[in-house]
Structures are given as structure tokens and as C-alpha cells.
């Protein structure tokens, strides 16, 4: 009954298979990751030493903007959606996603969005240059003409994310195998369920805020223009009402991945499964009431400032619970350190460091000194690179044998890990220091007192970039010529995905499995 995939390009254009679509998401996000990485390297090359060497300040601003947009919307989010496509049906024992045709559509509009966004680089006046946070009025009254293309690109990405999220929720709530109760679902499925709700709640807000920009620019409204009774600060409130949950959209699925990998290589069940679920839900809830901590210096009333400070500090509690649970999972386990485990342990440690700087940033008076400096840049790269990127990398190493039926080379994987780990820390750790010493973010040139840290950061960035090229090579060579993987792949991994053969057949669970 199971028929194989169609042949040629039509397979990919018309596919409604969750595995094909998952692979396309992953390849697309990898391409965007490399593109965003090139933008980052332009930034780091310019900042290698004081003075203007390589690019014009306006182009530098385009690079910081495009780097942020491409990494957030092009690399991290599609990668998680790709992993969800591949893994969610297999983890809950479903034959496919609930809405396979919408699944195809939500992937295929993405390349158009990013083609439009990237094409702005070649337009007159250049690409968006107002930062990925695009604060009005710099992004409205003072924006380059390409801003309209940027707005449409955001609309398309938003539509793609919302369709993806609806699909994931519909799948999880309706397609679970008999016996797969909610509290038996793997944490990756749980975190994605919560993430999907966050996406549906906030992506429309992002669409709303860019729509308001569009109307201010072209149709004479003044949502964000004081002259017509609007307020630029309103922009920031709406943006961050989207933006803070967005931050968790980029980290919650990572929690799920790590919660799958650490138990496997500790040979011990995940500690505190239920508390992990509750902690994820509380983090998601809190993400809606902390947005203004991005705006402490905007001049809010004292009561507002205190509220957002306390609410933000509270996030440390459920996040702490997660870290403690992972630690307890490893404690008294029987540990081995395969590549996915290395990335996961690095995730826990480095994400915790990012959490510490986040806690420091939550303290409003101290934030008056930290705000918009490299300390903030260090903070969010410490949560996003080891957080999102390392977890995605760990997931690829962990499940690649299941996807491709072939094993990657452990030596190569470990080399990749150590290069990435060292590169990351050399790049981002010095940013804490340059930020505290007073270097503002988003500047193309700086005083000599920041020169040493910046030079180190730039060297680290190129090392990290090189490590990702190695990653690309490892993935391709595994798929092409890796040795055969067993069905179980790892020693005693938990989950339905390990009960099917490697590589996973084109159609899995056409008859639902029994879940005890």
C-alpha cells in the first residue's frame, strides 16, 4: 500500500509528505544560517580594528539588520519547524501532519519571502538599515524605499509561521496514537505544542505592527508619528509584545530537544517530566507580561518599571527548574559523550550563563548601564547560539541516522563540536567585557579601549563560521557515504521514532502503534 516518493523536482514542489517537507525546511534554514553568517562575518571583519576599513556605515547598518532578520526568521524558526515536521508525527505515532497540503504551502512561501528580503540589498537606497527591531520613526519616516519589501517579506514569513503552527497543534491534538496521552508525549512535542500557541498569538501582532508601519508610510496614518497624535513609543510596546514571546519561540523547542538527548546518553529517564511541562507553560505565560523590560530606558512610570522588573526576574524560577532537572537527570547516570550529548551539555552550561546575564539585565537600574551595549549582544547571543543553534545541531546529529539511515563520523562530529564551542566562546564572551566597558551596540567604529576585545571576537567569529562549513561537509558526507545505522541507533533511546527502521520509511505508522 505504501507508495514511494515521486521522481525529480515534482517530488519536492508538490510533496505533502512530512519527511520531505521537514528536510526542505532544514536545508532551507541551513542555507539561511550560512547567509546570515556571511552578514555576521562582514560585521566582524569591519569591527576587527578601530577605523572604517571595509564597509560604509550605512551598509554596516544593513548588515546588522539583515543578520538579525535572516537568523531569527530564516535560520532558527524554520529549523525548528523542520524538526517538528520530521519528528512530531513520528513521536506521537501519526502517519503524517494533520494538514499535509497546507504544510507544503507554508514551506514554499518562505523562499519567496527571503528572496524578496535579500533582493533589497540590491535596491536603490539599500536594504533595511534600522536594526532587526526596526524602531519607528527610523523605520518609517526615515527608512529607505526598500522598507515596503521588508514589510511584505515579514507578512509572508508570518503567514508561513502561523500556518505551520496551526498544523502542528492540529496534529498533536488530533493525531496521537491510541494510548499516547498528553502527559506521555515526549517533551519535544510538549514544547512545540506550547511554542505553536505562542506563534499563533504573537505572529499576528508582528503582522499588525508592520501593517501599521505600512499605513504610516504610504497611507498617511500616524500610529507612530507624534505630529498626527501618534507615539513612537507605542511601536516599541507592540513590537516587544511580539518580540518577547518570540524569544521563547526560539528557545522552547530547544528545551524539548535537550530533554530528549540528555536522558539517552545518561541512560536514565528524564528527571521531573511533569515539572518540565509546567515550567515550559509558565515560561510561555510569563513571556506575555515582561515585554517592557526591553524598554527600561524609554522613561516609563516608576510603577511600570518595577512591575516589569519583578515579572522578568520571576522567569528565572521556571528556567532554573529546567536547568536543575537536566542536572539531576545526569546525576548518577551512566554518561557517554557522543556529539549530540556534547552539544546538549554545552547548551545547558552556556544557556545558563546567558540566563545569568539575563537576570542581571532584568535589574532595571543596572539595565540603565547595560541597555543597548555589547553586554546585551553577549547576552542574547549566549542564549540564542548555544540555545537555539546548538540544540538544532544536537538534534541533527541525534536524528540524522534515523533520517538518512547512515551514521555520521564521531571524530568529525566531535571536531565540529570543539571548533564551534571554542569559536562561540571566543566570539561572544569578550562582548560582555566590551559592553560593560561602555561599547554601544550597532556601531561600525569604536574607541581603542575596545580594540582588544573586538579583535578577539572577530577571530572567534571566523573560527565559528569555519566550524559550520565543516558541519555542512559532515552532513553531506554522512548522507552520501556514512556507514549503515541500526534501527535503534543509540544504546537504549526512548521514543516511538526508534521503533521504525533506519532510514525511516517514506510512510510511517500507517497503522497506529500501541502505546503502553
Amino acid at each position, binding site marked *: 500500500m505504501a507508495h514511494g516518493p515521486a521522481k525529480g523536482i515534482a517530488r519536492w514542489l508538490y510533496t505533502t509528505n512530512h519527511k520531505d517537507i521537514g528536510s526542505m525546511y532544514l536545508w532551507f534554514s541551513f542555507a539561511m544560517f550560512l547567509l546570515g553568517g556571511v552578514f555576521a562575518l562582514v560585521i566582524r571583519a569591519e569591527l576587527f580594528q578601530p577605523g572604517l576599513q571595509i564597509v560604509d556605515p550605512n551598509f554596516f547598518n544593513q548588515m546588522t539588520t539583515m543578520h538579525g532578520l535572516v537568523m531569527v526568521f530564516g535560520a532558527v524558526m524554520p529549523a525548528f519547524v523542520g524538526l517538528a515536521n520530521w519528528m512530531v508525527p513520528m513521536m506521537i505515532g501519526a502517519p503524517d501532519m*494533520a*494538514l499535509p497540503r497546507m504544510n507544503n504551502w507554508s514551506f514554499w512561501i518562505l523562499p519567496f519571502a527571503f528572496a524578496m528580503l535579500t533582493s533589497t540589498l540590491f535596491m536603490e537606497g539599500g536594504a533595511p538599515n534600522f536594526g532587526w527591531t526596526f524602531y519607528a520613526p527610523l523605520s518609517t519616516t526615515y527608512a529607505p524605499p526598500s522598507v515596503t519589501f521588508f514589510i511584505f517579506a515579514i507578512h509572508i514569513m508570518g503567514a508561513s509561521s*502561523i500556518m505551520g*503552527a*496551526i498544523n502542528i*497543534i*492540529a496534529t498533536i*491534538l*488530533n493525531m496521537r496514537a491510541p494510548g499516547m496521552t498528553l502527559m506521555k508525549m515526549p517533551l519535544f512535542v510538549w514544547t512545540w505544542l506550547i511554542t505553536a500557541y505562542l506563534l*499563533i*498569538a*504573537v*505572529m*499576528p*501582532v508582528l*503582522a*499588525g*505592527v508592520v*501593517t*501599521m508601519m505600512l499605513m504610516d508610510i504610504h497611507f*498617511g496614518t500616524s*500610529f507612530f508619528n*507624534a*505630529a*498626527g*497624535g*501618534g*507615539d513612537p*513609543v*507605542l511601536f516599541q*510596546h*507592540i513590537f516587544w*509584545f*511580539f518580540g518577547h514571546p518570540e524569544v521563547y519561540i526560539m528557545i522552547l523547542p530547544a528545551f524539548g530537544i535537550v530533554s530528549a538527548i540528555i536522558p539517552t546518553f545518561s541512560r536514565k529517564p528524564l528527571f521531573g517530566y511533569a515539572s518540565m511541562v509546567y515550567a515550559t507553560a509558565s515560561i510561555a505565560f510569563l513571556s506575555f507580561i515582561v515585554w517592557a523590560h526591553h524598554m527600561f530606558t524609554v*522613561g*516609563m*512610570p516608576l*510603577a*511600570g518599571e518595577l512591575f516589569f522588573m519583578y515579572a522578568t526576574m520571576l522567569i528565572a524560577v521556571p528556567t532554573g527548574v529546567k536547568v536543575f532537572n537536566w542536572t539531576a537527570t545526569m546525576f548518577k547516570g551512566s554518561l557517554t559523550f557522543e556529539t549530540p550529548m556534547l552539544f546538549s551539555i554545552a547548551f545547558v552550561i552556556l544557556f545558563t550563563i546567558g540566563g545569568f546575564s539575563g537576570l542581571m539585565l532584568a535589574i532595571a537600574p543596572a539595565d540603565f548601564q547595560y541597555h543597548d551595549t555589547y553586554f546585551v549582544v553577549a547576552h542574547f547571543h549566549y542564549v540564542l547560539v548555544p540555545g537555539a543553534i546548538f540544540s538544532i545541531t544536537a538534534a541533527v546529529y541525534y536524528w540524522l541516522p534515523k533520517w538518512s539511515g547512515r551514521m555520521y563520523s564521531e571524530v568529525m562530529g566531535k571536531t565540529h563540536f570543539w571548533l564551534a564551542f571554542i569559536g562561540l566562546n571566543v566570539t561572544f564572551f569578550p562582548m560582555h567585557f566590551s559592553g560593560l566597558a561602555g561599547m554601544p551596540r550597532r556601531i561600525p567604529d569604536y574607541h581603542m579601549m575596545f580594540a582588544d576585545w573586538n579583535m578577539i571576537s572577530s577571530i572567534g567569529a571566523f573560527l565559528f563560521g569555519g566550524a559550520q562549513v565543516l558541519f555542512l561537509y559532515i552532513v553531506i558526507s554522512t548522507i552520501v557515504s556514512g556507514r549503515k545505522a541500526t534501527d535503534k541507533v543509540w544504546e537504549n533511546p526512548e521514543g516511538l521514532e526508534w521503533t521504525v527502521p533506519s532510514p525511516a520509511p517514506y510512510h510511517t505508522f500507517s497503522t497506529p502503534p500501541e502505546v503502553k
Partner: protein
Amino acid sequence: MKRLMPDNPIHAICLKLGALGVGMFVFAIWVMPPMYDVFCEITGLNGKTGGPYQAVSAEVDTSRTITVQFVATNNEGMPWQFAPEVRTVKVHPGEQKRINYHAVNPTDRDMIGQAIPSLVPFKAANYFHKTECFCFEQQPLKAGESAELPMYFIIDQDIPENIHTITLSYALFDVTERYADNKVTKVTQ
């Protein structure tokens, strides 16, 4: 009664989630901005002062004196000369006071300006009442013309004891293009 939800549970949940998405979009554009304005009004956020005020009592509290400072800034591309006639006045709560801003349009074209008030400290914003103000309307000035722009205000008797100084700023914007048809409309600032 016709059932609202389709039979297929997958379609039902899509409908609900789609509605949530549309709802959040509507929330962002049509609910958040007015909510923000109400919030600003309650807290005095950004020092936004209210619209025309009807004086209720003429009782003057002579036991207190409050210093009111006036500053004026021009937004980008606004070539008018624009300044208060006096930089500070001292008033008693409850007393109505008039002050003038002086504006000159030095260019060779007719222009329209809009002054946006903002006041610090924010917590004083709810106690600072303008009975008449040039900022309630756009101000057209012909090429080379000048004008005295009056503003009448009363400080509420209930103003908190610890406020001794209030600074009122007007930022002047060029809105000539926005109101190119010279139709002067009311805005509530």
C-alpha cells in the same frame, strides 16, 4: 440551530486557531493603540496632556506656588522660529494663567505647523489643565507671517505636594503636506 463547528475535529481546531490569529491581528491594530492612549492618560506616560478643560472651581490655593517652565523644540525640517515669550512663570494651583508662544514662518511658502505638548514630571500631567491652547489645532502661517500663539492653563488644586516644578515642552512639527488642502482639523492632544 445550525452548528457552528465542522464535524471533522481537525477542521474545527483550525477554525479556532485561525480565529485566534485573526483576533490577535485585530488586537494589535485596533485595540492596542487605543489601550495605550488610555494607559498614557491614566499614568501621564510621555507627559501627554489632555484636551480642552472646563474649569470647575475658581478657588485659588495661594499657600502653594508652582514653577512652570516652558521649552520649545522644532522637529526636523521645521524652519519656523518658535519660542515661548517667557521661559518660566510662577502660579498658584487653581489660578488661570495665559502665556504666549511666538512663531515666525521665515520661508517663502505657506506652511502648517502642529505643536505637540509633553510634560514632565509625568505624574503632574493629570493635574495640568489647558482651557485653551494653540496645540489643539494646526497652525497655518503664510510665507513670512508671524503669530502670537496663546495658551491658557490651570494647575489643579489636588496636585501632589511634592511637585514644585513642571516643565511643559512643545515640539513643533511641519504638517504642511499632511494637511495640504489647508483644511484645519481638530486633534485632541
